[in-house]
């Protein structure tokens, strides 16, 4: 796992996509690279002489992908405008500074023979790189299932299409792909073939359901959790996730990716 850095990054570009999604490219000096599933803590808004103290906390965001652009390393963040912190991010202009700490956490690790990626909402951003690397290493072994309330809410679909991975979409209003929940797609998939490893990221309810479905089919399932965080590197103890075995794991340090069977889902916030 690359060692995390703390740096003032610079906004290379920001563009809106769909209804409430943004694509943010950040120029990150000395970026050490990342593993799929790792994340960064972002501090948008005024820095330095006149720093922002409200909203106070940095925001955790998955690293969507990385690139070298004219000799500098850049990372892309795909985010949804939710509250005040993401509103600040969405208000950034090219050249603005954004505090970055990362890459943080333990990612999905080496993926297995056949990978079934299930993502919804902001969780989509956490699985793209996983799909990309799996497809690169063993073409045709990854299937991606994406879900949203409506088509316009889906982030990054074009990128997944460009990868050429097998892609299925479900929307609750049927505006894109199949009408229904992404977990319906998962059930169908596993009914056909339960040998794949399930990688899930999205709303807690969705991941919990994925865990249940995979368990019932005897398929292994990894889930990438999205708990509120203050630090992102294991010191505030704020991101605790309850474990089946009792006690808690720290999502930022021991995760965000966990064996879904190890999580006490009923105790998740």
């Amino acid at each position, binding site marked *: 796992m690359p*060692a*995390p*850095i*703390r740096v003032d990054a610079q906004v290379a570009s920001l563009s809106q996509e769909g209804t409430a999604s943004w694509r943010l490219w950040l120029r990150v000096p000395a970026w050490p690279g990342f593993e799929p599933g790792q994340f960064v803590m972002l*501090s948008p808004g005024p820095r330095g002489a006149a*720093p922002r*103290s*409200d*909203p*106070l*906390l*940095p925001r955790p965001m998955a690293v969507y992908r990385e690139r070298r652009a004219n000799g500098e390393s850049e990372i892309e963040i795909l985010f949804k405008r939710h509250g005040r912190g993401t509103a600040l991010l969405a208000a950034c202009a090219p050249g603005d500074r954004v*505090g970055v*700490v990362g890459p943080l956490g333990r990612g999905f690790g080496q993926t297995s023979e056949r990978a079934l990626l299930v993502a919804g909402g902001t969780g989509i951003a956490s699985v793209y790189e996983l799909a990309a690397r799996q497809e690169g290493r063993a073409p045709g072994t990854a299937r991606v299932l994406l879900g949203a309330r409506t088509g316009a809410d889906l982030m990054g679909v074009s990128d997944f299409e460009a990868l050429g991975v097998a892609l299925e979409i479900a929307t609750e209003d049927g505006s894109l792909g199949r009408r229904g929940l992404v977990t319906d797609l998962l059930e169908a998939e596993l009914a056909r073939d339960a040998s794949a490893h399930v990688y899930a990221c999205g709303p807690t309810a969705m991941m919990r359901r994925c865990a249940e479905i995979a368990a019932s089919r005897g398929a292994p399932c990894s889930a990438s959790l999205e*708990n*509120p*965080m*203050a*630090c*992102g*590197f*294991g*010191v*505030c*103890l*704020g*991101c*605790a*996730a*309850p474990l089946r075995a009792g*006690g*808690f794991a720290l999502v930022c340090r021991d995760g965000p990716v966990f064996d879904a069977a190890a999580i006490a889902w009923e*105790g*998740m*916030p």
Partner: protein
Amino acid sequence: MSDAEDVDLRVELAGIPLRNPVLTASGTFGYGTEFAPFLDLRRLGGFVAKSLTLEPRRGNPPPRIAEAPSGMLNAISLENVGVDAFVREKLPALPEGVVVVASLFETEIDRYAEVAKRLSGVARVSGLELNASCPHVKSGGIEFGQNPAVLATLVRAVRRATTLPLLVKLSPNVTDIGEMARVCEAEGADGLSLINSVQALEIDVERRRPVLSNGLGGLSGPAIRPIALRMVWQARRAVKLPICGMGGIASAEDAVKFLLCGATAVQVGTQNYLDPAAAAGVVDGIRAYCARHGFSRVVDLVGALDMRRP
């Protein structure tokens, strides 16, 4: 205007010599090693480790944190690795030359004393910080630090248990911080740390529940800084004990405010989450402030506040 490099940043806090007056606050700096990727721990005056109990503790279910205006709430409860694992595993992992203050809290006085005993004589521990902001079971869950008599008994017991420099960390949830400071002085504490987080409540209006699983939590961050400065100033007037000031420090200027109010040293807390190298920046900024204002020694800033009406 003198040269920044010449500024003497050394202070002595409750008998602990520090290379500069900037420490990091308990519970916001883990066990130190977590920050190794971000800064050289030896640049700091020292750090106060997460509060320790006799046995390892698990803490509260989530949610444990919530954001607040210019601050955050937390209700982590007692989660920590326990005093023995700290001595056995955490301390040895730290580079030489890092000043470590061990913080302790418990739910009963004799247990507090036992933790203090186990930390005494441990090579790497330079001093103890007694966290009195912990609910005292016997007195119906009010904090040890909220009742002068209970606080006195606690400090006395821990004082007996250790010869290490002893800082008592005061709760801000009191009518008269000066009274609490005097109690600590009378019972033989070597110094005071203040303030701990301020008891607070945040509500989720959609679910009509507290945001935190614990209900109440502790408010920290810039929001409480003006309250902390007031209490440090009040404690300074009440006792002669050296004070380690904290509460919402986000910059060197903030730290200087505490020194001016009479703190000998400061602790950076919540800001470590926003910027894991923050404390090092505060050190550099204090040096620059001293140079800019012609102070050759940082100790000359301590208590240098002019309270006369303009």
